[in-house]
C-alpha cells in the first residue's frame, strides 16, 4: 500500500504522520490516531456522525482521504473542550437535554461549532440548515437546535469562543 507523509495540526497540535494513500480521514482518526470520538454511521456522507472541522469548515471525514489534510488544521470532538473545561456548546447540549444515545453528538457539536465560529449569531433557520447534514434518530432535533441557539444568544460578539 502506497504511503504518504503528511503534516497537519490536530486540535492545535502540530503532527506528522505516514498514511496509506487510500485511507479515509475518519479511519485515520479512529485507527491511526486512536481518536474514537469521531463516529462512523453510514460511510457515504449522509449521517454526519463523522463530522470534523477542517480549516474552519465542517466536513464529513468519511468522504475525505486522510492524505488530503496535509497542511490543514483539523478539529475533532477531542479538541473542543479544554481538559475538564467544557466548551459552551458542550455544556449547552447537556443543559438542554440535546443528548440521548450520543452517537450523533460529536458530529452535531462540530457542525454547530463551525457555524458559530463563522457566524456567531445565526438565525434559527441558519442553525437548522447547518445541522441538516447531521442525522439524529433519537431527539427529534428540537433540543439540539435549542442548545445551539442558546449559545449563539449568549455569545454577544465578544472574544471568540474556544
Amino acid at each position, binding site marked *: 500500500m502506497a504511503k504518504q507523509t503528511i503534516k497537519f495540526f490536530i486540535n492545535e497540535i502540530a503532527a506528522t504522520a505516514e498514511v496509506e494513500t487510500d485511507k479515509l480521514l475518519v479511519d485515520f482518526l*479512529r485507527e491511526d490516531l*486512536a*481518536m*474514537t*470520538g*469521531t*463516529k*462512523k*454511521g*453510514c*460511510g*457515504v456522507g449522509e*449521517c454526519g*456522525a463523522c463530522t470534523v472541522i477542517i480549516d474552519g469548515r465542517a466536513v464529513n471525514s468519511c468522504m475525505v482521504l486522510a492524505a488530503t489534510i496535509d497542511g490543514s488544521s483539523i478539529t*475533532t*470532538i*477531542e479538541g*473542543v*473542550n479544554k481538559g475538564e473545561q*467544557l466548551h459552551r456548546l*458542550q*455544556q449547552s*447540549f*447537556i*443543559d438542554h*437535554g440535546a*443528548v*440521548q*444515545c*450520543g*452517537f*450523533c*453528538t*460529536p458530529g452535531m*457539536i462540530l457542525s454547530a461549532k463551525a457555524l458559530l465560529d463563522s457566524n456567531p449569531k445565526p438565525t434559527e433557520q441558519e442553525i437548522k440548515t447547518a445541522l441538516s447534514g447531521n*442525522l*439524529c*434518530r*433519537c431527539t427529534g432535533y428540537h433540543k439540539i437546535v435549542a442548545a445551539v441557539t442558546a449559545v449563539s444568544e449568549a455569545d454577544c460578539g465578544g472574544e471568540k469562543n474556544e
Partner: protein
Amino acid sequence: MSNTGMGASVARKDAVKKVTGQALFAADIVRPGMLHAKVLRSTVPHAILKALDISEAAAYPGVVKVLTAADIPGPSGDGTLVKGEICSDRDACFPAVRPCGVGIILKDEPVLVHDKIRRIGDAIALVAAETEQAAEAAIKLIKVSFQELPAVFDPIEAMKPDAPQVHPNNILTVRKIRKGDVEAAFANADVILENRYRTQSVEHAYIEPEAGVAEYDGSMLTLWVSTQNVHFDRKEVARTMNMDVNKVRIIQAVTGGGFGGKLDISVQCHLALLAYHTRRPVKLVYSREESMVASAKRHPYIIDYKTAATKDGKWTALKATIIADTGAYASYGPGVITRAAVHATGPYEVPNVWIDAYAVYTNNPMAGAMRGFGVPQVAFAHESQLDLLAEKLGLSPLAVRLKNVLVPGGITATGQVLKHSVGIKETLLQAAQTAQKQGPNFPKWEVE
C-alpha cells in the same frame, strides 16, 4: 440540597462523556492483539446450501480463521423450527434438540446457515483477520454453491397451502380475540365501515450500526456489545458455545440507539465463535448496508377493519383481520402480532370484538421489534375508522373519541378491567385545549 429525585429534570448521568467524545461505543473498543471480523451473507432469498469452499479464503494473507456452521460447538445449526408448544421450557430443552438457532421467541434463525438459506442476508461464514481489509477480501474468496428454491414474498401468498415453504408452516402465529358477539352487533348497527389499510416496512436506522468485541481467556468469554438486552445475549451465546451461562459475560457498550432493532442477536454469537476459535480478541462492526440488510424491520401489515357504530357515534363492534409479514425468521413477530391484536380497538371500549391476527413467514427481510411493537400500524387503522365515522355522523373528531374512550372501570378487548391511571380522556382534553391556543387553524372543538 435541591430535589434531584422524582420530577427533577436533572442532566443525564452519561452526558459529559457523550459531549466530549469519551463515551466508548462498541466500535471504539480496542483490545491488544485484536482481530477484525467479517460475515459472508447470502445474496439469494431462498436456496439449499450445497457446499462451501473456504480454502482460498483461509489461505489469504492475514486471515487467521474462517468458520462455518460446522464449527459451532453448541446445538445451534440450521434453524430447524422448535416451537414453544412442543417444548414449554424452551431453554432447558434445547440441548436435546439438535440443531437449532437463535431467537427471542423461537430459535429459528441459524447462527450460520448449514442447510437452507431463507433470506438475503443470512449469515453463512465468518472470517477473522489481522485487518478489516484482509477479512473483507477473504470473504469474497469463499465459494458458495447453492440451489435456488422458489421463494415467496407476499404474506397472503405465503399463507396458501401450496406456497413455497420458508419453514414447515409459513403461518407462524395466529392470535385470536373474541369478545361479545360481533355479528349481532353488525346486524343492529346504524353505521358500518369497512376498509383495508396497509403499512410499509421501515428501518430502525439507529445512527450507530451494530458492533461488538469479544475475547476468550480459556474459561470466560467476554463480549462488549451494542445491545438492548445483555441477559438474553448471554443465554444465546452460552447455548451456541455449549458453555455454562455464567461463563459468558456480556457488557453493554455505550449503545447508539436501538428502537427495538438491537434486541435480536447480531454480532454476539459470531464474535463468540471467532474469539473461541482464535483465542484472540475479535471486533465486528457492521457497515450501514450490512446493518440494514441483516437487522429486523418494522412489520408491514395488511389490515382489514370492519366497525359498527350507533348513530350517536358509539362503536359497538370491531372485526379485524391483521396479516403481518414477519419475513424469514420469527424474531419478535409473535409478540408484535399479539400486541397488535390486543391493542386493535385503540384506547376505546368496544363491547364486541373479533380479531384474527397472523404473523406469516416470507423470504423477505426479517421483521421484529420496532418502537411501538406492532401498534402504530393498528393505530393508523382505528384512528382512520373513527374519523370516517365522525364525518359520516357529523361529529367532531374530538367528540367521537370522547364518546368511546376507556375510563376507569372500562373493559378492554381481552376482558381486562382498567382500574386506575386511565388517562386517555385527559390527554384528549389537554391536547385539544393546548391545540386551540396554537392559532386559528386549530378547530374550536367544543370540549364537553
